[in-house]
């Protein structure tokens, strides 16, 4: 086998040639999607022009379109996809359940409930307008995510340990509760509010700006680096608690850290991009079908697949049905599901 070993005190990667090729192809796919997405919109800008803008030599008008409107949105879409997919991959590894996904932990649900509450509290029923700026919405979502995180962890923690299955069950219960709160406020409020909330719940990256990009970029980079540091333990955890413990892994501590990393990633993503569903569930499965279950490759690959999925979904959403904009969350499943099902039956086993 053509294996490439990268190993030191902190990292341990075992790459085979196939994985490397898959990683490379996915990266090229991501980059070309990125370029194509920059060209599309109200106004078509050809690829050479896009490249010259990227190199700082484009025309003013192209630069305006790309820098001010398209780029922030595209970057947010990619970061959100990246974070959700990596979080999903980590969770599926920890919980050892193929249904595990960021949604199931109740973080997305909590953020959604917070958004609906925000819309309910700060809107004026007479004028149908918000009384505070919409730019606080991400903050509300983030607070919701963190509060639900604390709740779910607190409730799942028992006798000094955090069993994955218990965590997931508590998460399922908590998401159901959050979902109920969300529907309740959508039903009692006026319809325009329900409609606005529905938009967020579907997941969209409207109105992204550079300020948001900066925050999310920093947040995502920090936690993805942390994730890469800790994933070697994830490989061992696949074997079960007892085996991992006997291999000298501090199961409990690592699990807490990994869970924290994945929830932090989800919280960041949903704050700015809304409750984009399905990516966190399916991107890791696609990655696993392509390269097998070694987390050193699986994590970056899932991340890139997630980024491609959300980016394509958002690009379709903002171009194909012009002048209507459709939230990215609508298309993630439409793109991801058929490909995944194809993989499911092509590979047959596993």
């Amino acid at each position, binding site marked *: 086998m053509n294996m490439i070993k990268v190993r030191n005190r902190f990292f341990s990667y075992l790459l085979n040639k196939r994985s490397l090729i898959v990683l490379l192809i996915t990266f090229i796919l991501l980059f070309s999607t990125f370029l194509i997405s920059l060209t599309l919109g109200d106004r078509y800008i050809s690829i050479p022009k896009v490249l010259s803008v990227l190199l700082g030599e484009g025309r003013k008008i192209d630069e305006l379109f790309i820098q001010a409107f398209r780029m922030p949105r595209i970057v947010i879409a990619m970061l959100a996809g990246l974070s959700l997919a990596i979080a999903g991959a980590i969770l599926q590894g920890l919980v050892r*359940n*193929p249904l595990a996904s960021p949604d199931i932990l109740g973080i997305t649900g909590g953020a959604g409930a917070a958004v609906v509450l925000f819309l309910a509290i700060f809107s004026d029923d007479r004028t149908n307008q918000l009384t505070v700026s919409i730019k606080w919405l991400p903050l509300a979502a983030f607070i919701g995510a963190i509060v639900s995180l604390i709740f779910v962890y607190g409730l799942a923690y028992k006798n000094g340990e955090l069993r994955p299955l218990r965590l997931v*069950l508590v998460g399922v*219960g908590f998401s*159901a509760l959050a979902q109920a709160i969300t529907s309740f406020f959508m039903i009692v409020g006026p319809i325009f509010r329900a409609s606005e909330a529905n938009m967020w719940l*579907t997941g969209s990256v409207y109105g992204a700006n550079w300020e948001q990009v900066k925050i999310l970029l920093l947040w995502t980079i920090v936690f993805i680096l942390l994730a890469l540091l800790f994933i070697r333990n994830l490989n061992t955890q696949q074997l079960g608690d007892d085996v991992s413990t006997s291999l000298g892994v501090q199961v409990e501590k690592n699990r807490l850290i990994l869970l924290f990393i994945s929830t932090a990633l989800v919280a960041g993503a949903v704050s700015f991009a809304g409750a984009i569903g399905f990516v966190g569930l399916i991107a890791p499965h696609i990655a696993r079908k392509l390269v097998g279950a070694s987390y050193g490759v699986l994590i970056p690959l899932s991340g890139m697949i997630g980024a491609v999925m959300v980016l394509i979904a958002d690009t379709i959403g903002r171009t194909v049905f012009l002048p209507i904009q*459709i939230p990215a*969350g609508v298309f*993630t499943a*439409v793109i991801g599901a058929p490909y995944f099902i194809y993989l499911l039956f092509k590979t047959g086993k596993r």
Partner: protein
Amino acid sequence: MLIHFKSRLIVLIACILLLVVCFFSSILLGYTDTSFTNLIHTFTNFNGSNEQLIIQNVRIPRAIIASVVGASLAIAGLFMQVLTKNPLASPSVLGINAGASMLIVLSITFFNLQSVSATIWLSFIGAALSSLFVFGLSSLGKDGATPLKITLAGVSIAAMFSSITQGLLVTNEVALEQVLFWLAGSVQGRSLDSLVMVLPYIIVAWVISLALGSKINTFMLGEDLSKALGQNTAMLKITLVVLVIVLAGGAVSVAGPIGLVGIIVPQIVRMIVKNDYRWMIPFTGVVGAILLLLADIASRYVLMPEETPVGITTAVIGAPFFIYLARKGGTIK
């Protein structure tokens, strides 16, 4: 956990008695006060008073619908967990809710369809088609419908359908307003006629379900072992899928997508009679009916005199209890 036949039987009977109590409370409690004598007089000595009319036309249908829907959803959830070998699975994993919702929203958006009986059949057809699609798809290939394949294919298809629904709703505010209440799930204001359309199938499904207990016990030993014991596992799986379609599809068509009952109830029951399916199936049905009846009673009081969809109350009652059990039971598996 109960082990002996006798103690299980006693608890089951106690649960059934509780179900009866809940059923009558559901008839008697609500915005209009009614008394037990009133209820009896409705049958023995009908005088057309306001209370009696409410009992006859609103409360009784509602209590019956809640019990039937609750029991069916819970049993369907249990079977999904058997099929996928996953304690987190519910009928929605097979795409039941997503398929039903999609067909309803499609027909409202494009054909402006609103009649009650059309809604019932459309959602039933949607549920049936999407779950047949999922199961058919996961049966392809050499190894047949493995639990993992059913789960993953189901989740993907369900996500695809529900995102189509979402897309339609995002672009169409009128449709959103119309289906929002339906989408949250409700047993209020549904007439008995709508239940009568699907009830015969549901009852047949219940009877078959009750007879399957020991077969499922064998099946849960593992597919290879149960095949070696002479069981036709493919046939059993198909039977289970059909039962889930009839039970959950029927429930959805009458009451809309009510979540969580299918996950919570089997987990609760598992703590009472740990994985003996001969007992789990009747217990699941009874507990499911109790849960939905209670949730429906509570949903009358939250926003009185307005109604909250029962799907919301199920979650509000069920979720904390579920979390409590998840914390307490170290043995959930």
